[in-house]
């Protein structure tokens, strides 16, 4: 464990979810292009705002010297662009203002210009990547792998999609029928995440003694339960299996598009299953941050 603990893990997790949720909203617009997903889009964009706000609040709460002397926060952008903390705070602050604005336009049912969406998408990707780069640039052997920022981005987007699904379905059960294209994206991300995770562990274990200690702490040591139980089983195996089965089933029975099937299939069971599976993905995303933060061992200077 370094000087960063649980609060930073929660912060990185929330920032990732927020970015992912916003990206889901944009995907509804540009990728799926399904008018019936309008509620999912709105829910996704609205959800991103309080989640990011909460994350920023936790970041400030963790920086106690700034918490008790709030005016010092004004110095946060002093070290642009060299400090990833300065750069990241700038990205996240801009993203937050954009979310508030975009959310307001959606609330008023006003036209959202394309450049807002493009800027939002860039800032969302920046936020997701920053959560990985922030710790990836610190001098901790286990964190210094090129996979880490990609893994955090992919996992953030995947947890964000899951959170947006839950928020959307809570609002309107019928969208459960129309999210199949997004579920395909989600499944792809989850599989990619699993691949990145194990290649990260493999590369970390083979490049440095201290990093190898971190890896053994994760695979067989004190973090093994969080890793195998929380991240691998709950966060990856359950969602990947469930979504694969769903997509295979969906292929076999293609429902007629013009029928409103919500009373048939979007029953309580389906909704509960979605809550459970997407909840598991979100929990897995949290376990990932917690494990990566907790497994950090400082460089061995006594070589």
């Amino acid at each position: 464990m370094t000087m960063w603990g649980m609060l930073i893990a929660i912060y990185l997790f929330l920032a990732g979810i927020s970015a992912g949720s916003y990206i889901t909203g944009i995907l509804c617009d540009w990728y799926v292009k399904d008018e019936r997903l309008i509620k999912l889009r709105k829910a996704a964009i609205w959800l991103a705002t309080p989640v990011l706000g909460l994350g920023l609040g936790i970041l400030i709460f963790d920086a106690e010297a700034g918490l008790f002397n709030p005016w010092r926060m004004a110095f946060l952008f002093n070290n642009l662009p060299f400090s990833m903390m300065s750069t990241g705070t700038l990205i996240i602050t801009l993203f937050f203002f954009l979310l508030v604005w975009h959310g307001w336009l959606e609330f008023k049912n006003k036209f959202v210009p394309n450049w807002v969406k493009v800027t939002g998408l860039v800032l969302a990707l920046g936020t997701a990547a920053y959560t990985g780069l922030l710790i990836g640039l610190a001098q901790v052997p286990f964190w210094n792998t090129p996979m880490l920022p990609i893994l955090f981005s992919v996992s953030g987007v995947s947890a964000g999609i899951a959170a947006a699904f839950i928020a959307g379905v809570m609002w309107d059960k019928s969208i459960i029928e129309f999210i199949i294209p997004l579920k395909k994206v989600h499944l792809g991300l989850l599989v990619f995440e699993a691949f990145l995770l194990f290649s990260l562990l493999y590369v970390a274990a083979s490049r440095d003694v201290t990093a190898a200690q971190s890896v053994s702490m994760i695979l067989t040591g004190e973090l093994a339960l969080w890793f195998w139980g929380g991240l691998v089983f709950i966060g990856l195996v359950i969602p990947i299996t469930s979504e694969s089965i769903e997509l295979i089933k969906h292929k076999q029975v293609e429902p007629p598009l013009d029928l409103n099937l919500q009373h048939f299939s979007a029953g309580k069971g389906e909704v509960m299953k979605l809550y459970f599976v997407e909840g598991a993905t979100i929990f897995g995303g949290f376990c990932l941050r917690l494990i990566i933060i907790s497994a950090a061992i400082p460089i061995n200077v006594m070589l």
Partner: protein
Amino acid sequence: MARYGMLIDTIKCVNCYACSLACQTQNGLPDDENFIYFLEKEEGTFPNVKRDFLPVQCQHCDEPACEEVCPTGATYKDEDGIVVLDNSKCIGCKYCGVACPYSARVQLHDSMYKKGTYEDAGREYNYTVEKCRFCKELVDNGEQPACVTTCISNARIFGDLDDPESELSKAIVEKKAKPLRADLGTKPKIYYVR
């Protein structure tokens, strides 16, 4: 304008912890916090074993990783090459502590101990992420850092690395002292004899 550095002779060091006690007194630190910590390592196979001790503190790098990541510019290198902290700018984000390869940063807050001690030392520790400052207040007065003056075996030498005639520069050459993990590229200015 100097470029201050230090030599620590671990062969002379008897691991008495006097340096860390002097450091606590000088900086008004509580008994469980310190800017100097000790690493231990056992070497060899029985019965030919020895224990290595290594006192580690801020290495006052020429290219400090903590300065590079500090978002507010609170950590900076002064004109004498000492890496110092402007407490009034530090927000306590601890990025410096995570970035420092030598784990030399310590977060201090006043609920940990009596206010009097660090106020006597002329400091305000309010969740700021503190560090060894080569006892800048003493050095500016032409004195030596507390850990150097207190060392019972004269294992520590403090001086100007830019002055080839200084005791420090001569000792580094003579004893073939090397910095810790120079491969990390931060150009540390504490040299160790091991």
